[in-house]
Structures are given as C-alpha cells and as structure tokens.
C-alpha cells in the first residue's frame, strides 16, 4: 500500500524547528538544580540517619554498659568487704596457731575445709576416752584456729564461733581443772558449727578470682597509647536549602567587581590525617592529631564582564553596570583546611570489638580556596587565607562521632567512624549560615605497648 499521505506529512515536518520560549531554559535549569540538590539531600539524609542510628546505638550501649559496670562494682565491693574482714581476722588466727594461721593468711577461704577436717579429727580424738589432756587441748586449740574463719563468713557462724570461743575459755579452764566431759561438749558444739559452715558455704574460692591479679592483667592488655591514620568522606552542607546568593572572590585576578551567583547548598567533604590517642581513665581516652580537610561545592553563575567571567558576587553595593548576564555555567569551589581536632572518647565496649563515642572540637585553619571550571575552559584560580579572602582564616567546629572498632592481633585496630562536624561560625566572613559535614571515616590504629 502506498503511503503518500504519510510521506507528505513526514516531509512537511522534516527538519522543522521552532524557537521555544525564552523562559524555558530557566525552568529546565531550575528543575535540574532542584533534582541535583534532591539527590544530594538524599545522601545527606542517609548520613544523618546513619549518624542518628550510631548515636542511638551508643546511648543503648551506654545504658547496658553502665548497668553492667554497676553490677560488677557491687560484686567487687562485696568481695572486697569479705577480704577486708578476713584480713582483720588474720592476726587473731596467727596468734592462736602456727601453721594453720599462715595457711589462713594466704588463702583464708580455703582453710575452712581444712579447719573443718581438723575439727572433725579433733572431735574424733576427743570422743576417744583419753586422759591425754595436752592432746585434747591441742585439738581445742586447733578448733579455735578455725573460729575466726567461721566468724568472717556468716553472722550465724560468727555468733556460734563467739559462743564457742567463750566456751573455749571455759575449756581452757576445764583443761586446767582436768574435766574432760565439758571439753567433749564444747568439741561437739564446735563440730556442729563446722558442719553448719560446711553446709552453708559453697566453694567460694573458685567463684571469686583475685581482683588484684585481674587488674594487673587488664593493665598489661590495655591499649594505653596508639597512633593512627584516618580517612573520611561525606557530604558537606552549607546549612541552607535551595540556592542562595553567595559572596566569594572573583574568578579573575583583576580588581573588577563581580556580581551575585548561586551556590548549591551541598558538596563533598574529604579528609585524611594522623591521630594519637591516650587513655586517661578506665574508659576515657583523649584523641588529637592533624588532618587535611577539603570541602568541594558547586556553583552556578550567569555573570560576565566584558568577556571576563566572574564567579561570585561581593555585595550588591559593589556591583558594576559593566557586568552582564550570560548563560549559566558551573564552577567548583574547593576549600582546603588544616584541621587540628581534640576529642574525648568514652569506651562503651573495650574488648576485641570496641565501641566508643567521641566528642570534641576542631580548629580548622584555611589553607586556600581554589575555583575550578569543570569544563576546563578557564584556568584555576587559588586564593590563600588572609584579609583579601572572604573566608575566615580560622574556624572552630564541633565534632561528634562514634567509633566501632575491631582489634587485629595485639598491635592493630581498625575502626569505622560515622560522624558530624558542625562549624560554630560561618566560614564566610560576611556569611550567616553554619556549614556542617556528615561523613564516614576509617581509622587504622597501631597500638603502642
């Protein structure tokens, strides 16, 4: 079938061109910028959520950590009290008996069973009809050696021991008078006390490790000092949404005035540096170091002057009538800082896997600001810190990050650190918005032992 009708129409429209309205490109550009900002905002939202999740996790871990710390502290206090009581009783034991006292001093809890055995044997001996009062007295003295040990463990036992002690004095008197019957009664009572003790007391010696030994061992294993290299990358926000009027140096090195341009409110932040950490408490560390920080953001400008292109405006009062508006073009601004952070960290988990929360401040010294034309049509322009620069030479920023780490061997530890840096003052001298970065960092530690 012939398609003359269709061919005719195709020919009629072939190569047709119609000029679109003047405002069409502006609409397209605004939509593209909004879309780009939307993407960047999504990325920032991701980092913000990651940081929020980290903080939430840190808080949860803190609660658990504090609870466990309190529990272990209570247990340690109880153990310390027991040991203290033992030490208080040790001189009595020593004065009362020779060999037994020294055993009791070294490991008092262990002696309980020995004492009980001895008492039982003493009991058996005393049950034997013998006139050997010296031997009986020796058994009684053996029993009396055990008395302080029993006293230190339970009140009931202690009460029993006291009465037994009192009776011991009687026994001594009895011994002197030669009445064996009374001695036998006392020995029976002592045996009962010992049995009670044996039944009531679990093998405590195995459950309670020596805290001093543990403490010494922990001190040896502790990561008291470390050095590290750090890397971080993330988003850099100017603290505003949408485009804004922005003041910055001119692209040209000449002293000609410039006009306002727009700046995208987000960019990219990267840093690399070294750091040193020192433990200053059981769970506290202080971290400092040196970092090289770059913050890159993109600008759109549509201003030009007699063929020369300007990137940013100074103020509206400085605008020249010679400035003309042309096609919008992109410019990248790269800020370079030397950053000196100082942070305090609290270690919530201090094991092979570690988790800590760091917070502190950073002094960021501006090195230079470089303006780059992504199309490569213009050469780069750099300006250092100083009076001519629209940027502050020194900026203070607050730092908050969490650090999830893993120890490799005895000497190394790697960490992942999501965090936020918030500038306390605008980085622009005449700016009003506070910049911030949300980044994800990595740290490789070398532990100095």
């Amino acid at each position, binding site marked *: 079938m012939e398609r003359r009708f269709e061919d005719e129409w195709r*020919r009629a429209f072939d190569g047709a061109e119609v000029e679109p309205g003047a405002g069409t490109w502006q609409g397209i550009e605004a939509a593209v910028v909004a879309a780009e900002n939307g993407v960047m905002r999504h990325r920032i939202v991701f980092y913000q959520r990651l940081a929020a999740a980290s903080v939430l996790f840190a808080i949860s871990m803190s609660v658990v950590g504090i609870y466990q710390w309190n529990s272990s502290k209570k247990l340690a206090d109880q153990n310390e009290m027991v040991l203290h009581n033992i030490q208080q009783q040790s001189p009595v034991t020593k004065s009362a008996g020779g060999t037994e006292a020294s055993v009791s001093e070294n490991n008092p809890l262990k002696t309980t069973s020995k004492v009980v055995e001895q008492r039982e044997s003493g009991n058996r001996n005393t049950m034997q009809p013998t006139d050997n009062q010296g031997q009986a007295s020796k058994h009684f003295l053996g029993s009396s050696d055990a008395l302080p040990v029993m006293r230190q463990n339970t009140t009931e036992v202690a009460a029993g021991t006291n009465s037994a002690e009192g009776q011991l004095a009687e026994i001594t008197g009895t011994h002197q008078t030669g009445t064996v019957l009374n001695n036998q009664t006392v020995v029976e009572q002592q045996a009962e006390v010992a049995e009670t003790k044996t039944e009531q007391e679990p093998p405590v010696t195995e459950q309670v490790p020596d805290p001093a030994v543990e403490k010494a061992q922990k001190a040896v294993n502790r990561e008291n000092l470390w050095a590290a290299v750090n890397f971080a990358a993330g988003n850099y926000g100017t603290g505003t949404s949408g485009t804004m009027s922005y003041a910055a140096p001119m692209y040209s090195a000449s002293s000609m005035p410039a006009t306002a341009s727009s700046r995208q409110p987000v960019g990219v932040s990267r840093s690399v540096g070294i750091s040193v950490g020192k433990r200053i408490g059981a769970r506290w560390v202080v971290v400092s170091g040196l970092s090289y920080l770059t913050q890159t953001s993109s600008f759109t400008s549509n201003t030009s002057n007699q063929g020369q292109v300007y990137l940013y405006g100074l103020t509206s009062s400085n605008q020249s009538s010679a400035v003309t508006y042309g096609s919008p073009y992109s410019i990248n601004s790269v800020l370079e800082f030397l950053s000196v952070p100082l942070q305090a960290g609290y270690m919530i988990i201090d094991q092979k896997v570690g988790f800590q929360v760091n917070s502190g401040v950073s002094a960021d010294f501006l090195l230079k600001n470089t303006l780059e034309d992504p199309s490569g049509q213009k050469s780069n322009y750099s300006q250092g810190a100083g009076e001519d620069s629209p940027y502050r030479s020194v900026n203070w920023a607050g730092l908050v990050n969490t650090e999830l780490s893993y120890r490799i061997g005895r000497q190394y530890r790697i960490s992942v650190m999501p965090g936020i840096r918030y500038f306390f003052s605008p980085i622009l001298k005449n700016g009003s918005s506070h910049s911030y970065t949300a980044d994800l960092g990595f740290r490789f530690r070398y532990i100095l032992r």
Partner: protein
Amino acid sequence: MSNSHNGYMISDEELIKGCSAGNRASQKALYDQYARKMMAICLRYSRSPAEAEDVLQEGFIKVFANLPRFRGESRLDTWMTRIMINAALNLNRQKLYLMPMVDIQDAPLHDSEEVNLAQFHFSELIRIIQSLPDGCRIIFNLFAVEGYSHKEIASLLQISEGTSKSQYNRAKSLLRIKLNDAGNEQERYGKKI
C-alpha cells in the same frame, strides 16, 4: 555532529560527556543545539505552545538525567526525540485513558490519497494537528510522522491495534476536512496562510 557554542566547536561526544558530568555549560549547549528541533516535535503532540514547552522542559530534564546511560547506539537527536515523545505521552496519559476504546479489527484503512501540504505554512499545519482530539493527534503523529506501526502504537499506549487503526482513520478524515477548509480559505484570500 559538531555544534558551535560561544565560539567553541563542541561535538556531540563532548556534550554528552559534559552533561553526564553535570556540567551546566554543556547542558546549556545541548539545549541550545536541539531545543528548536525538539520544540517542533513537542508542538505536534500538544494542544498549545504552552503545553509544548512543558513537554520540552520535562523532556530535557529526562535527557540530562539519562544521558550517562546513553550508549550511542542511535543518533543523539533520534534518542532525544524518543524521550520527548515519551514525555508527551506521559503528559497525555490521563487523556489517553479517556480515548474511546473502539476495537474495530476490520476498520477499513482508506487508500492513501494524494495530499499537497506544500501550500501550507508549518504553523498552519501545526495548528491543524493541534485541533485534533488528543487520541487522534497522538496516534496520527506516531503512525504518519514517526513511522510506528499500529502494533507498536498499541503496545506503547496499551490499547488494541484496532483502536489505534480506528483512531488513525478518524484523524485522517478530520485532517482532510481541516485541510480542505484551510485550502478553501487560502483560495478565498489568495495567499498562503
């Protein structure tokens, strides 16, 4: 293809590379190069110049968003034309749902009749096409100008082939009437409209 922009000769490859990197100057250069041609296409699919500009705007946003994925298998302008048509179809999607679903499998296609469009100015042809009902206009453009088959149109618009054919026949009938009217008017005033 090379384009002149601000005194520089920029090839399509450079434009694609620059646009893919988000370079605003490259995007503007691409727009300057192809906007007029794309606007002519958008006008055919729209009811008014304002609607055509909306389509053009939407189309260029999609072009910039998808340029990093452009593999160069077709010419850049062909690829952009498809995007513009899709943008127009998306904008008219709601209207297409309202298209009468006349499924006439045996709808007779009239033999092509000779038609002389040379006597009409481009703007008059556009005006005539824009006066067609939405469904007819879109199917006429797809079939007669872009060269799609009814099967492809049916698949694209999620309608039956019969509907596409009947809508096209209706478009042709309407166009003949409108062209006759316009021709008569020309004869009456003795000049090209």
